[in-house]
């Protein structure tokens, strides 16, 4: 069963001759436990695709099903709830709260949502991500790579069914970038998440199950990478 489905989704900005079709008619579906890469040049519509899939913006037309629930039927408040329950975002720039230490970044979610990871699960996650010694540190005191790993922990902490990552490795050197991809893969398989990673870096696609390429708003499935 598909966890995430986009049916005939289109997104355009502006009208008349200034109209930009950021996303042309797109059909897409992803299963649980799939790690999917979306590559493509700058301005091709990757972020647009990802934010529409995550319910952060509404398409001009078409439907998005998250766990069979149509986002088009929901208002912003309800979509916010879906994001909280079903979706984890990992962004290019760190999405951590500056005045919360690593532990409290997670705890914040406990204030607004039930059924997050247990203490043991969180400890295992910290262990996996190699950040268990950083729990009391504030974002400003972390390196870029550490921050990105904390961001991943934060996205996974709420046990989302869908994990959306926009250039999660952009601020990292290639060594660290591989590490992060390795982690994403591990978590995807372990927790049966549906993970979509947008990236410029074609070397990272070898970690993924499927690779899509975005060109001028058109999303196309590419040949599976040889390895894997």
């Amino acid at each position: 069963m598909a966890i995430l489905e986009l049916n005939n989704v289109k997104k355009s900005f502006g009208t008349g001759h200034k109209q930009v079709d950021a996303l042309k008619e797109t059909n897409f579906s992803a299963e649980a436990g799939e790690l999917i890469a979306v590559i493509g040049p700058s301005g091709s519509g990757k972020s647009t695709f990802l934010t529409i899939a995550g319910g952060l913006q509404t398409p001009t037309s078409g439907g998005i099903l998250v766990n069979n629930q149509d986002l088009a039927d929901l208002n912003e408040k309800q979509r916010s709830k879906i994001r909280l329950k079903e979706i984890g975002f990992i962004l290019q720039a760190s999405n951590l709260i500056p005045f919360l230490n690593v532990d409290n970044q997670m705890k914040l979610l406990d204030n607004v949502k039930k059924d997050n990871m247990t203490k043991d699960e969180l400890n295992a996650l910290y262990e996996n991500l190699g950040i268990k010694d950083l729990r009391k540190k504030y974002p400003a005191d972390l390196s870029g790579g550490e921050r990105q790993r904390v961001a991943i922990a934060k996205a996974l902490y709420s046990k989302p069914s869908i994990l959306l990552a926009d250039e999660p490795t952009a601020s990292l050197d290639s060594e660290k970038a591989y590490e992060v991809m390795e982690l994403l893969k591990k978590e995807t398989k372990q927790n049966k998440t549906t993970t979509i990673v947008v990236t410029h870096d074609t070397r990272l696609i070898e970690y993924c199950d499927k690779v899509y390429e975005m060109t001028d708003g058109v999303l196309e499935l590419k040949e599976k990478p040889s390895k894997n």
Partner: protein
Amino acid sequence: MLLLSNSLTGCDLMFLAWNEIKKNKLRFTLIMGVLMLVSYLVFFLSGLATGLASLNREAVDKWDATAIVLTEESDKSLPQSSLTNEEVDAFKDNETAILGQLNAIATNGDAKQNISLFGIDPEEFIMPDVTEGEKFAGINEVIASDTLKEDGFELGDELELSSTEEKLTIVGFTDSARFNAAPVLYGELATFQKVKFGEGVAEDETQINGIVIRGDDLSSITTSNEDLEVIEVETFIENLPGYTEQALTLNFMIYFLFAISSVIVAIFLYVLTVQKISMFGVMKAQGISNGYLSRSVIAQTFLLAFIGVVVGFALTLISGAFLPAAVPVSFDIPTMIIYGVILIIVAILGAVFSVLTIVKIDPLKAIGG
């Protein structure tokens, strides 16, 4: 502090609020400091308002009366009113007390002070309790407000009055009693008559200034005499010279400070909120609701305002204790508590701006892409 911090972070609403305050101590201490200063000023002004008011009305409040009867033509002014002792009989269904009043300068040779002389009947309810010395027993003996002690007057002092040759002797003191800013001397009606009219006045011609009435119900106190006017005590006080003007001025300043503190908090929090737009956007993208974020901001404002007001309150009382007696401040705790609550409420109103800003943040813009 640790205990406070634990109990605060344990509470959902205070989680963001308190963690942010902890991490940005200087910033929030500044806001709290401003709130503290504003509340300090409000409390002090309210103390001044109460002090100045009691300077005017203290003696009247001691009557615990419902109304006062003055002549119509006096226009609610006690010294301008003049009625005969017999007119009291018209109100005999109520508890009444006659009152003669005049202002004079009294001196004991060294100290000089504006005083208000009350001529009363010692059997009636205006008669004050004596806290030191004894009751006046004969003519020219008076009980004095003990505020006169601070002005250098003592038990047994012979007082010369500005308007007459008569001399008065202080035989006792009573609790602070002032009328229109002048300390009160209480004496027999005969003493008052002698001071006012000199020796030769006939007993049946005695003139008093007003009749003070205690009664359950103002509407039951009526007169058929068209020359007389029954005035509610509060109205009487409001018509004391300068009283209303003073009260209005100070209250106006206090109300203004309420508005100012609301605006200050609004500006401070708004600036802070604008700085945090992308952070709020990230949280909203994550699915954290407007409601939770708004409540956090309100909770934070409440915390800052509460601490600021409490510290301001304490500072007011502390500095009040060190003020010279001549400064007419008197702190009325219930009024101060009400003002404190109002300050906290207006501060929270100031946070509404920030809440509106947060609600309008588009998470998409905040996270970029």
